[in-house]
């Protein structure tokens, strides 16, 4: 069932929802961008509809709500430990199709990958329902259509914000019917983007030999001088799941403290450093190669039906060195072509 709510009606429904749910949405932080006077849009807990930034695609992904940049896993004292607690209140998240689809990809890594289920991810994910935000086409970094992530039916409500403050709502999940009882029904279906300016073809790596040759291809050298290994691309990525853990000791007793998990990235220096100070991937080119192949080969090889990318384009948008993931993909395609023709 669908409705058109006036601004007042929409505010009233929102206020009702707040009684039951923690609501998260993209929120604009004025002047908090990388450069002076630039804003940043990131996910926050919101208290009113006017807090929701629906026009600009968020700079940081929705995943931050479910797997925050930092979280306490458990607290320990000598031989005992206690898991961290989270609220049991259900969560509603305003999200675009790309961000919702990214959770399908993340869930596979967190739940069941290698026979282990990440309970910290699960306990958050289980609380979440989505409010699909009508995406009017994103920006010139988006390529969700190429990644087949432009559509989703994983939502409870779908909304479209109108300039005049009114709100179109489709209620898909009956649990929400009672919030709209007094309101007249109309026809409304969410629309999905069906064309991006940017089109990408993910290259097919047909066998192990091609893969090995691609790994050794000189195309990666370019990044040794361009990429500064800052990790901004992966922090902004809707699908990246890598993290590291750290034990924080309270005061001077090394037996008392907490274990924290903190987002990390294959792009950052030190990520592959192991005991003895040895590092698997030292150069920026090697790190870039790992990221690209992980996203556009390894993941699919394991989980078959998709790559580890929803085409949100945030990595390109946040890279301070203007390294475009889609151009890098094109370079990969070209390198594979050369390999197949026997040129390298």
């Amino acid at each position, binding site marked *: 069932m669908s409705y058109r709510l006036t601004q007042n009606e929409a505010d009233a429904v929102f206020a009702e929802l707040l009684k039951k749910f923690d609501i998260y949405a993209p929120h604009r932080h004025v002047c908090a961008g*990388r450069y002076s006077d630039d804003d940043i849009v990131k996910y926050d807990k919101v208290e009113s509809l006017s807090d929701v930034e629906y026009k600009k695609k968020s700079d940081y992904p929705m995943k931050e709500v479910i797997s925050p940049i930092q979280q306490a896993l458990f607290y320990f004292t000598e031989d005992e430990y206690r898991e961290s607690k989270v609220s049991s209140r259900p969560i509603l998240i305003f999200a675009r199709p790309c961000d919702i689809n990214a959770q399908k990809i993340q869930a596979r890594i967190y739940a069941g990958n290698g026979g282990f289920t990440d309970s910290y991810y699960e306990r958050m994910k289980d609380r979440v329902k989505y409010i699909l935000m009508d995406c009017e086409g994103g920006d010139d970094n988006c390529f969700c259509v190429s990644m087949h992530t432009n559509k989703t039916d994983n939502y409870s409500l779908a909304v479209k914000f109108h300039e005049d403050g009114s709100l179109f709502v489709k209620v898909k999940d009956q649990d929400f019917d009672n919030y709209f009882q007094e309101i007249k029904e109309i026809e409304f279906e969410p629309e999905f983007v069906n064309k991006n300016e940017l089109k990408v073809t993910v290259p097919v790596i047909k066998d192990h030999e091609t893969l090995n040759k691609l790994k050794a291809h000189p195309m990666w050298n370019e990044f040794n001088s361009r990429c500064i290994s800052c990790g901004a691309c992966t922090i902004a990525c809707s699908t990246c799941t890598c993290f590291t853990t750290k034990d*924080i000791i309270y005061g001077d007793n090394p037996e008392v403290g907490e274990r924290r998990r903190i987002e990390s990235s294959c792009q950052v220096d030190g990520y592959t450093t192991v005991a003895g100070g040895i590092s698997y991937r030292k150069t920026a080119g090697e790190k870039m190669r790992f990221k690209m192949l992980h996203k556009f080969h390894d993941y699919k090889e394991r989980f078959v039906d998709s790559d580890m990318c929803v085409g949100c384009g945030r990595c390109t948008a*946040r890279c301070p060195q203007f390294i475009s993931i889609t151009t890098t993909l094109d370079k990969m395609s070209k390198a594979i072509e050369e390999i197949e023709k026997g040129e390298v």
Partner: protein
Amino acid sequence: MNQDINIKTLQKNCFRQSKVPGVFLLQMRVPGGYVSAEMLEIVKHISETWGDGNFHFGTRQTFDVCGIKYQDVPAVNEYLEKYIKSVEEDVCGVDMDLIAGEKVGWNPKAGYPTIGARNITACIGNYHCVCGNVNTFELARKIEGIIFPSHYHIKINISGCPNDCNKAHLCDFGIIGVAEMEYHPDRCIGCGLCARTCEKGSTRVLTLNEETGKIEKDTCCCVGCGECARVCPASAWTRKEEKYYRVIIGGRTGRQTPRTGKMFLNWASEDVVLSVLKNWQNFSAWVMNYKPEYLHGGHLIDRAGYKKFKEIMLEGVKLNPECLVAEDIYWHETEYRSNFNVKPLSLHHTAGPQDKK
């Protein structure tokens, strides 16, 4: 060529004497060094009609047109009306009828009424620069009407960040945009990039605490450059929305006592900077016994002494709570001639009203 020319009057009109008798250079003000490209048409016309067909970027970001003949000055002035009205009145909101705040009346066909204060220079600031913390030319435009037109001189340089590309340290009143930084530990992944960047290019005030994986900061010495926010991959450092400024005074070049300026205010709000500058006329007038001379600001501060300068400049100014003021200033200058400063009392300059004598 036998010509009787009052070059002082011409200088006030912004025409500078050249090596060749009867030939002058016109200096056109460009507040903040930023102006619509349309204005280049005017510069072009003046230069091709009355000048030598070229122009020079003045060291204070003016358009300088060389080779203007004395007899053409009235025609040039008449033509300048368009430029002055557009740049000074429309863009900067300057009241051209006032000189140092007093109603004098400006003849728009007679060119610039005064050469003081000197053109306010600025780097491009955050309008373009990835390091910038403030919009430098917008600030210049707000200041223009406070200090110009006036017969009192002051050189103001504005830099968008502590990199100080525009040498706020080498003018009477240098203004540097500084950012107050906020740290959000919940967003910090402990990569240490901000600390390495601060160490390499700034003040080495950040350290990554290996125990906590978080950043610690020695707040006393942060210069507010904003580099940490620029490099942080996770927006764990952000600039506060409010803009702040550092004010450097008394810097100068010159034949006698060149020196780098020293910090007068730190973390001043825009309001504070503007209201301090509103006292500049009073201060200059007081030092020079109410008779303007061609003397730059730094020398006036020397004559009055820093404490007197501070007293007059802060009169009626409501400082923002973050603002810090130098208690004293310890100058460090190059004395080209040793002990040049030690001389008979009769040669000493005076400061302040002299009626009592």
